[in-house]
């Protein structure tokens, strides 16, 4: 689980973003190394979700740079200036970045199996037979082998989110982003999703997880990034952040959580 490589897989450098006059990210910087699980915590509106959406360029940034596996995301350098990249290159970069959404966003017109195969087949142009076999394995891995032919409307929230995880994994991404993956779930299905995520973490998947599940963060995260008002308050190991937070803001946040 420890980082085996010194170059970061995901590097965020001084990310700034604003909607009109409202600054939602004010210079965020941190690195994520291969095999690491980093949890982003903090109060609502602190910019956690916006930050993970910036990492695969679902949101534009005003300044700073994001690299994944050494490649700039969303932008490229042109004659010394940074300009937005072409649709095609942005789309190519995104294949390396899996994303799981708070509201699942499964494709309702496709079965669970088709949701998992559509990316590799339609984006990567891979052989449908091979992809289908892999997709069945992925569904088994998220414990939904028996739901392959079901449409999303026929699945519970927890099942849908597990299909969404399989869908993202099917692209064989270098890093997985999770945007509050359990916030829209019924309490009784939260556990099954966290279980799958824990299993992914144990098998060495690099993960960036926005979460309010402090138990999960404490058990699974290598590092915790505490954010507030668009900035990083503190970064530390799960152990250090939970047992010995350095910043008053972090202590106040934990106090309010109880």
């Amino acid at each position, binding site marked *: 689980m420890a980082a085996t490589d010194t170059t970061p897989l995901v590097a965020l450098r001084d990310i700034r973003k604003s909607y009109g006059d409202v600054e939602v990210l004010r210079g965020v910087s941190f690195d994520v190394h291969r095999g690491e699980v980093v949890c982003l915590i903090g109060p609502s509106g602190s910019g956690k979700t916006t930050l993970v959406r910036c990492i695969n360029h679902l949101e534009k940034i005003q300044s700073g740079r994001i690299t994944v596996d050494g490649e700039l995301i969303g932008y490229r350098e042109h004659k010394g200036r940074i300009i937005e990249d072409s649709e095609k290159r942005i789309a190519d970069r995104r294949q390396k970045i899996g994303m799981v959404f708070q509201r699942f*966003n499964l494709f309702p017109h496709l079965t669970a199996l088709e949701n998992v195969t559509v990316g590799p087949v339609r984006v990567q142009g891979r052989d449908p037979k091979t992809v289908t076999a892999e997709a069945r394995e992925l569904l088994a891995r998220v414990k939904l082998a028996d739901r392959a032919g079901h449409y999303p409307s026929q699945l519970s929230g927890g099942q849908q989110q597990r299909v969404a995880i399989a869908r993202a994994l099917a692209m064989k991404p270098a890093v997985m982003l999770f945007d509050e993956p359990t916030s829209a779930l019924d309490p009784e299905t939260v556990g099954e999703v966290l279980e799958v995520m824990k299993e992914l973490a144990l098998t060495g998947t690099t993960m960036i997880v926005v979460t309010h599940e402090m138990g999960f963060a404490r058990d699974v995260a290598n590092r915790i990034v505490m954010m507030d008002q668009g900035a990083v308050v503190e970064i530390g190991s799960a152990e250090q952040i939970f047992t010995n937070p350095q910043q008053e803001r972090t202590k106040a946040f934990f106090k309010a959580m109880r």
Partner: protein
Amino acid sequence: MSGDFNIDTAFFLKYLFNPPAIIWKGLWLTIWISVVAQALGVAIGLLIALSIRSKRAWLRGFGKFYVWVWRGTPLLVQLVLIYTGVAAAGFYKYPDIQIGPFTLTGPLQAALITLSLNEAAYMAEIFRAALSSIDKGQFDAARALGMRPITAMRWIILPQAARMVVPPLGNEFTLMIKGTSLLAILGIRELFGTLQQLNAATFRTFELFIIAAIWYLLLTTIMGFVQKRLEAHYGRYDQPAADSKTTPGLRGLFSGQR
């Protein structure tokens, strides 16, 4: 069925159950013009809808202008303008076009062009409404999988839009079938034009126009059946798992549509 109305029952029954060849020809003309014009209208309408949703201001402007003009003027006026106006201005003289054994006469070309372009304006509005009703999360999920806009449109967005387009499309096609009766003004002998011609020879107005009504009703009814099948097809993913094979029966026939 006689007396005050003075209906020639024998004439009526003969023309209804044993129609002369020219009625069959007129009927066939009505059907293929409707189908071709509707198909072209759907294709062009989709392009117009996409241009209205474009990032480029001039494409949006063009799309809105197109819909404004074609929806804001009567079909009859458009027919006459496209046929006589375009030829008179010397843009295009409508020479006969030979396609295999079929001859596409000048009036038929003008009719197909006008009906298609007119229909495209209505279909554009239908597509636009359907596309804008699709959850933003679907676009996010497609992009996150690395889909380029055209791939996302083809495999994720349009299949979902199609389902919302089918009911209004059924309406449009019904209007199209009935609307072809206006082509008589260009001297086209479709169903209505043919019966009008027979009327001029026999003065059996009431009998002939009842026959016309019956034929149009039959066509639009068959259309209704096709629509129900399409709706069931596109609605399949909303069915609960248990009865996903249900197909609509006769009861759907008399409900709803114009």
